[in-house]
């Protein structure tokens, strides 16, 4: 028996070696070239001009970094970022940007130490050190990421602000809202994100827990692509807009704190509710208008959606089914439900290829109407078919104005035109909530999802345990997009500005102040002094420039991340020196 085993083992060994030899030998000849090269080598030639641009007036013993695109053709909104002093950074823009401060406060643009950015830039992406152990200036220092289980943070002893209340902060996650609530009820966690829509009552009825409603900075809409019949008929779209009982949807499927959408943009955003409110529900009028438009017996179509829970649509399939039932009852429209895979759904809907209704929504990135309206109703967006210049031109004009009061008449005009044209039907602003054990102080439910745990005291306990919906993908948030990753990063890193606790107004963080010139296309930021990073280095203007070079300059060797796409840098600012393709 034993000898057999020995023979067997050696046979296996030989077989492995043979396999490895055959496999390793043959493909190796034609293989290495295609896998590695193109991604890293392509941008190299354009590198020189970007980083060598002249630095203006460096301080005596301070050599300032600078990033400057050759011209605005090879840049987006930001043309350049320069260290104009050890604690002064100048942003040069290619066009005025009234939303500069709300955007710069977004945690994706958090500042990393220059040296760390250089050492963690790998060949093809950021090194695992860079992706998993971020170094910042924040109140907490990352101590351990036990993948699949939890992330542990410890208090930063040298934090420039108030020392964190709890010595240790732990992040856990569960996709099931029921499981999160149960953990909270059991006392194994101190706070949870996104209480399930049906569980609000359970939390508010439990004296050991407290519920914090999160203002609804989002919108859920029912879209129709107007390049397909019968949605090409404005009268049909208007009839449908009146024929759907949106109040019933909100009452039945949305948690407390949600509201029926009077406008596409939530009212909490300045100028969000400019113009007339949306149509009232009126079955008789809707039927009459639909008949007049040539569809007295309704028609048949489809309802597309993806089965993904968002705060704007907490009960996706229930809402889809009720819309289906309402269309049938109120307007005699037979709509077949089609559930699509999320990626394919976004691809098809954003290209305007879905020939029916579809259910989609939007979460605010930053609190400004441009983030809602310009993205959806700009002339170039095909997701609803053809856009009407009656609003898209007006929106483009409004986007150039910094003063909300001055912009208001334009937003009134645009919103009324949208109401008239009905590219989609805004239905709800979905409320959501966090819940904490009752003894936690300073409880938060941030409208933008960036709760700051440093100022919460978990009833005197040493450890604060937070449970959210998912595990962060990486902790290098310059190149991440999901809220679950960003929230974890925000405890460790800080941006020049930040949003006030539980609000959307911006307050200075690593910058003491950022001020624009008159034409809003140059912003000068004065930085906070005596701030140290977790690795002991001192924060100064070069760290800011290095960070933006890393994010914005596609040709820089620092431009390495998780996906290397730097979506938010690209989407809100536009990259510099994008490879031509």
């Amino acid at each position, binding site marked *: 028996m034993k000898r057999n085993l020995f023979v067997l083992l050696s046979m296996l060994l030989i077989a492995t070696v043979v396999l490895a030899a055959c496999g390793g030998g043959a493909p*190796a000849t034609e293989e290495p070239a295609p896998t590695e090269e*193109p991604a890293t080598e392509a941008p190299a030639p354009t590198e020189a001009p970007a980083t060598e641009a002249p630095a203006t007036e460096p301080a005596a013993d301070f050599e300032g970094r600078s990033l400057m695109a050759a011209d605005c053709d090879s840049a987006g909104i930001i043309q350049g970022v320069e260290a104009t002093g050890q604690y002064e950074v100048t942003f040069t823009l290619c066009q005025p940007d009234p939303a500069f401060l709300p955007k710069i406060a977004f945690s994706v643009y958090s500042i990393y130490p220059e040296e760390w950015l250089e050492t963690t830039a790998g060949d093809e992406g950021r090194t695992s050190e860079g*992706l998993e152990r971020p170094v910042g200036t924040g109140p907490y220092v990352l101590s351990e990421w036990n993948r699949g289980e939890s992330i542990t943070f410890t208090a930063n002893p040298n934090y420039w602000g108030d020392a964190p209340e709890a010595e240790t902060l732990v992040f856990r996650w569960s996709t099931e809202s029921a*499981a999160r609530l149960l953990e909270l009820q059991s006392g194994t966690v101190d706070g949870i994100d996104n209480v399930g829509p049906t569980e609000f009552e359970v939390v508010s009825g439990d004296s050991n827990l407290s519920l914090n409603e999160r203002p609804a900075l989002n919108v859920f809409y029912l879209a129709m692509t107007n390049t397909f019949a019968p949605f090409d008929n404005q009268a049909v779209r208007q009839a449908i807009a009146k024929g759907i009982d949106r109040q019933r949807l909100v009452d039945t499927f949305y948690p407390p704190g949600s509201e029926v959408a009077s406008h596409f943009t939530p009212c909490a955003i300045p100028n969000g509710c400019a113009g007339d409110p949306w149509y009232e529900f009126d079955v008789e009028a809707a039927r009459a208008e639909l008949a007049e438009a040539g569809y007295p017996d309704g028609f048949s179509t489809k309802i597309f959606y993806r089965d993904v829970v968002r705060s704007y649509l907490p009960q996706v399939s229930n809402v889809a089914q009720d819309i289906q039932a309402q269309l049938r009852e109120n307007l005699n429209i037979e709509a077949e439900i089609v559930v699509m895979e999320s*990626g394919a759904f976004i691809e098809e809907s954003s290209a305007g290829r879905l020939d029916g209704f579809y259910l989609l929504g939007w979460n605010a990135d930053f609190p400004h109407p441009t983030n809602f309206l310009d993205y959806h109703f700009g002339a170039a967006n095909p997701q609803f078919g053809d856009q009407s210049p009656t609003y898209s031109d007006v929106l483009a004009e409004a986007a150039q104005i910094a003063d909300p009061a001055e912009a208001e008449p334009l937003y009134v005009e645009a919103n009324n035109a949208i109401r008239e044209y009905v590219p989609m039907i805004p239905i709800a602003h979905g409320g959501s909530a966090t819940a904490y054990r009752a003894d936690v102080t300073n409880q938060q439910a941030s409208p933008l999802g960036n709760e700051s745990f440093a100022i919460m005291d978990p009833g005197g306990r040493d450890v604060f345990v937070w449970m959210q919906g998912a595990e962060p993908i990486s902790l290098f948030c310059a190149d991440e997009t999901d809220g679950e990753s960003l929230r974890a990063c925000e405890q460790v890193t800080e941006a020049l500005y930040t949003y006030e606790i539980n609000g959307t107004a911006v307050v200075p963080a690593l910058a003491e102040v950022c001020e624009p010139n008159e034409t809003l296309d140059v912003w000068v930021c004065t930085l906070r002094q005596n701030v140290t990073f977790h690795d002991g280095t001192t924060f100064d203007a070069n760290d800011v420039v290095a960070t933006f070079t890393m994010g914005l300059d596609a040709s820089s060797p620092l431009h390495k991340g998780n996906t290397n796409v730097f979506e938010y840098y690209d989407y809100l600012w536009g990259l510099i020196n994008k490879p031509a393709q």
Partner: protein
Amino acid sequence: MVQYLLRRLLSSIPVLFGILIVTFIIARVIPGDPCRAILGEKATAEICERFVHEHGLDRPIHEQLFIYMGEILRGDFGESIRYSMPVTRLLIERLPTTVELSFAALLVSLIVGIPLGVISAVRHNSWIDVVTMVWANLGVSMPVFWLGLMLAYVFSLLLKDTPFWLPPSGRVSAGIPAAPFYDVWNLNVPESGLLLAFYQFVGRLNILNAILTSNWELLKDAIVHLILPALALGTIPMAIVARMARSAMLDVLGQDYIRTARAKGLRQRVVIMKHAFRNALLPLVTVIGLSLGGLLGGAVLTETIFGLSGVGRTLYEAITARDYGIVQAFTVVIAVFFVVLNLLVDLSYSYLDPRIRLE
């Protein structure tokens, strides 16, 4: 024996190649590209184009297949698109969860299933037999996900504030120290390579690691977390094992040699344990081997319900996110595990029954 093994190994090579190709094809014909699944819904068409190019997904399919096969043969499983890390690392992270869960479930099914089956065969047609069989039939008929939810409902909610409360999700409670054994023992850990992978793998098997480091707090906590998922996942195999053990024992107990043994005046216990049970093991091993395979499918559901990030759940998420790297590597590993499992089951025949020769 050696010849048989060689032949079996050789004949599994085309199967393994088939597996490689099938996983590759399945991964690539899944509609939708990974871009929006990974970058989120706000990614523009232009950003997606860049993303696809960065990851070489715009190359001709046959070229990608070639690269993939070459990498696999050199033992390189490639990278996860979503996590930007080698899939091997993900495997080391996720496999221990599933291994622990499957072993716990298997343990439950054997410890409960075999005695139940044997007893109900010995006491054929008694009330124990009837109850066992009713229970076993119910057990194989229950959907895993339903059982899991119901267990969580009873033990995590109804029994809250009693000593029988069990946690509804996760592997360990937050704040329980879980230093890996190699740190506790001050071992020289290599920077990379197989040994490191092995150390990390063992270090993440919470229960084993807790025993190795005498960390009783962690041991208790890990076991408490494991009970519900193991019960949910182990019930079906438990029922199958009980039924199989019963029918195999019934079969054996009816044989002449058992009558002879009894006639010799051997005690009942000796007859059952030594003569009958050993012979009944053969079909049992087959069933255990098969249900180990089935456990992996059930693990997808169990891990989803109990919030465990094991192989099953990771694979399911990777399929929905079109993370080709994970889908390919994980399915290949699982399939190879299946092939090896089948081989082991066959080998165990000749060990259990010397009359069977593997030729």
